């Protein structure tokens, strides 16, 4: 794989710009992916935060959902934050009627599990596998999902470490897929994106 991979950000809706900026400082070239042609031109894909029901609906309307599944099945590395985690989950709790996902991560994810916006929060998170892992990452959780259950092929890389939700799984990865409940793209800390770029280089 190229030393400076081209990583697309799925630009249906949501925090697209922030991921592009984060990729800029993480050793990759970021680009928008709105169409099949654009998807075919990237080495890997980030699915940003936003509303998962909106992304699913529009991905199907514009015939992107099957190509996304095929790309993922053929080994394209993908990283999803928040709604992106829901999009990469095999099973969703609290989905709207008929809601689908790209899937690929053997996890069950619950939408809005921490509650509504008044329960959205920041907290320090320890993430396995990133540079300086002992140095806490600023976890920003916005109407965030959590992982109810993760299959054996899935490595848990982050959990909430204190408070009422202590122990909840908020970061997972497999060989080519990674997902976080929180939004690393809303911080100036590039370590999660660096980890994904490394996964892309090794794929």
């Amino acid at each position, binding site marked *: 794989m190229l030393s400076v991979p081209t990583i697309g950000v799925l630009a249906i809706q949501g*925090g697209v710009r*922030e991921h592009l900026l984060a990729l800029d400082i993480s050793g990759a070239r970021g680009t928008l992916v709105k169409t099949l042609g654009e998807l075919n031109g990237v080495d890997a894909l980030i699915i940003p935060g*936003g509303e998962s029901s909106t992304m699913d609906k529009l991905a199907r309307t514009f015939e992107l959902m099957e190509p996304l599944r095929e790309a993922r099945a053929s080994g394209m590395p993908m990283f999803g934050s928040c709604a992106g985690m829901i999009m990469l989950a095999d099973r969703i709790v609290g989905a709207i009627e008929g809601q689908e996902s790209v899937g690929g991560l053997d996890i069950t994810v619950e939408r809005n599990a921490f*509650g509504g916006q008044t329960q959205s929060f920041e907290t320090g998170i320890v993430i396995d596998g990133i540079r300086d892992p002992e140095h*806490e990452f600023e976890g920003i959780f916005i109407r965030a999902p959590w992982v109810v259950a993760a299959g054996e092929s899935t490595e848990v890389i982050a959990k909430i470490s204190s408070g009422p939700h202590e122990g909840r799984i908020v970061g997972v990865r497999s060989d080519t897929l990674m997902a976080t409940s929180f939004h690393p793209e809303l911080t100036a800390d590039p370590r999660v994106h660096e980890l994904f770029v490394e996964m892309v280089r090794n794929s």
Partner: protein
Amino acid sequence: MSSEISTGTSRVKRGMAEMLKGGVIMDVVNVEQAKIAEDAGAVAVMALERVPADIRAEGGVSRMSDPDMIDAIRGAVSIPVMAKVRIGHFAEAQILESLGVDYIDESEVLSPADYANHIDKWKFTVPFVCGATNLGEALRRLTEGAAMIRSKGEAGTGDVSNAVTHMRKIRSEVLRLSSMAPDELFVAAKELQAPYDLVAEVARTGSLPTVLFTAGGIATPADAALMMQLGADGVFVGSGIFKSGNPAERANAVVQATMHYDNPDVVAKVSRGLGEAMVGINVADIPVHHRLEDRGW
């Protein structure tokens, strides 16, 4: 950062608005409309008792919606639910926060409660969106703690012209600031009637520190595409959907046009066969004292 849990921070409030970007927020007055909006791919709904077109037609004092109505909509959809309070009516805002709504719109569409002061929005955990017709007004709202700004187009008219004016005005004022010499920013702050620190931040970054949505008078997919091309981060649609001939189709079309705002082929395709748009009122025909954009200061 520590492993303590902090709610209501600026990053959490502004970040929530960032996640709505590229999306459509729809006014809904009941559960059925909220479901239609969610199914169409709306990123949030605004729960209110009367859409702006009806407020305009019926007149009288317009207030925060009944908590029962807001709760019913919160129970029916999984996307964020916003609700409106009167300008300056912090007690209505306290009620909405206690109900657990996801965002509060301190809105000129309702009758103002305070003709001098807006709500001190820093006191709340729930984030606020406020309207602005120009950069100075936007920065004053941010100073009061707003986490999201929208234009103040003439709600309930189906006439997009004021939203266009506000969007162009805010953008050109941001560009003007970013081309100024540092010693000119002090006077710029005075002229904008906004704090120097915020003015200097806008000049340095070349953008507002929060997202800027468009609102007021958006009635068609083409209106949404126009506003997105003028630099809006996303779209509020009020009366435009549920006062039209075929709300479900139109809701789908506006959502799709907002995603593909820069692709005329898509906007053309979704504009076909939508039936009647809402009946419009030209802003120029509305007596000046009935115009909403002048509410808020």
